[in-house]
């Protein structure tokens, strides 16, 4: 499978989105919480509290939408600053109540528009990077589809970062890269190779801890084993004292 095949798979319309993961893993236990308390509720970001193995967990996700109507409503998973600020509010809440944070990342990137700039898109992302680095509770981020640059990283400063086999994670879209390199945005396949954006590439570079195999068809077995794995990981991370956890998180990013 080529890098461009992964790009295509990561963007496929029938690919499960964050809502599917939340529903299949947490069922009815998920209670959604809304708003950033400053400006609005950004529907590209879903957040709330759920139960995992009898323990509470904060869940935050970038949601693209599962059909055209939802995709428009969710702004195709491209968050505004208020989305990142909602995420940070819920992370701080998780820290206060000593529950771990689980992030699902799926976005082509933070939204590029007038309102996003006016309300400080750069500042919102920067603040998340800074605050997540010392959040005194375990954080696990899972890239389930597209991991588009700073807009994805703003939910991926974590103790562990995992990727679905066919998810991608990149500093720039292959189209953007191709148009800068060759002044031709159609050369996406070549650009995809150059960017080293597949889960295998990123594992080799030490950017992620784990690749989650994708079955040919999505089934409940996949979500069940996924749930077990997440539960075990939080148990492992919660057993570590906070000082060590944060030192490890710092070093995780310091090495790059």
């Amino acid at each position, binding site marked *: 499978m080529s890098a461009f095949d992964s790009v295509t798979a990561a963007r496929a319309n029938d690919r499960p989105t964050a809502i599917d993961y939340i529903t299949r893993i947490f069922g009815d236990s998920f209670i959604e919480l809304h708003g950033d308390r400053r400006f609005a509720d950004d529907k590209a970001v879903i957040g709330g509290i759920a139960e995992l193995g009898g323990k509470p967990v904060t869940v935050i996700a970038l949601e693209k939408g599962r059909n055209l109507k939802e995709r428009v409503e969710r702004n195709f998973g491209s968050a505004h600053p208020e989305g990142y600020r909602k995420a940070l509010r819920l992370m701080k809440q998780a820290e206060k109540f000593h529950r771990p944070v689980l992030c699902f990342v799926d976005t082509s990137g933070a939204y*590029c*528009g*007038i309102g996003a700039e006016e309300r400080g898109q750069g*500042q919102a992302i920067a603040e998340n990077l800074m605050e997540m680095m010392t959040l005194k509770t375990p954080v696990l981020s899972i890239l389930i589809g597209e991991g588009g640059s700073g807009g994805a990283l703003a939910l991926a400063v974590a103790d562990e970062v995992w990727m679905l086999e066919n998810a991608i994670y990149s*500093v720039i879209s292959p189209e953007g*890269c191709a148009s800068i390199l060759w002044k031709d945005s159609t050369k996406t396949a070549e650009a995809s190779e150059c960017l080293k954006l597949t889960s295998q590439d990123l594992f080799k570079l030490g*950017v992620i801890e784990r690749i989650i195999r994708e079955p040919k068809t999505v089934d409940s077995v996949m979500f069940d084993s996924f749930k077990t794995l997440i539960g075990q990981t939080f148990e492992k991370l919660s057993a570590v004292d906070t000082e060590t956890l944060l030192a490890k998180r710092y070093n995780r990013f310091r090495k790059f």
Partner: protein
Amino acid sequence: MNTSDIFNFLKPKNELENQGDTLAAQNQPFIPDELWVKCPVCKKPVLSSDLNENFKVCPSCGYHFRIGARQRIEITADKDSFEEFDADMTSVNIIDFPDYTRKLKNAKLNSGENESVITGKAKIGGCEVVLAVMNSQFMMGSMGTVTGEKITRAFEYATEHKLPVIIFTVSGGARMQEGILSLMQMAKTSAAAKLHSDAGLLYITVLTDPTTGGVTASFAMEGDIILSEPKALIAFAGPRVIEQTIRQKLPKDFQSAEFLLEKGFVDKVVPRSKMKDTLTSLLILHGSVPEKTEEKEGDSQ
């Protein structure tokens, strides 16, 4: 020969910026020595030596020409006080990206520097600081792993020695040619900035034209105090990217320093001629004790 011909002939070249291949490369001239230069805003001619004496600010309209990192250090740090860190650190083509090795070589030749940031220790108005100055002449100030490493080390040094940090930013964003590793620099530098902040130390950012992308979305926006030069372009997504996304023209002065001031993302717009004094005052207000030097002789404090 009329005057416009003279100015065509003398029109400064802009080759260095074209090396930048990043979001914000704008058509702004570099200034050759001892020549007349036409201000791109008011179009009036100015002798480059006069321009140099005036901090490279147009005496007629106040337009701030872009300046290189070495000159920035010269006008900001006290004379002979700058001690550079990690001067020899240099990037390699880690992910084997097409053409990057050649681009790096050209960037070094054209800028005379090894990377897009210069870091070190300096005194400003007699106050000891860690200073980092980004360089638009090196791949448009894009952030690669060495850029991130130098900034991170500067923060770590400052934290260890309890010093304030001042960073002058200018950047087209993360360096595409280093792929995901350039993205990771955003997290790395932010981590170091956070530990510096948690130690109760002062961090001031000075945004200069242009500051965009991954630098805006990391350490540029993390200062306790965020200053900017007048009219600097400050953006997450550059104007062209936004216009392509929303398919409409952006209003004039959108994403200017003054616009960000109005929206609440910049503390103060400070002209270049006042920058050193402003920084000195802020440092003293945060507990820096200026060392008396000849330069400061006669000052009460």
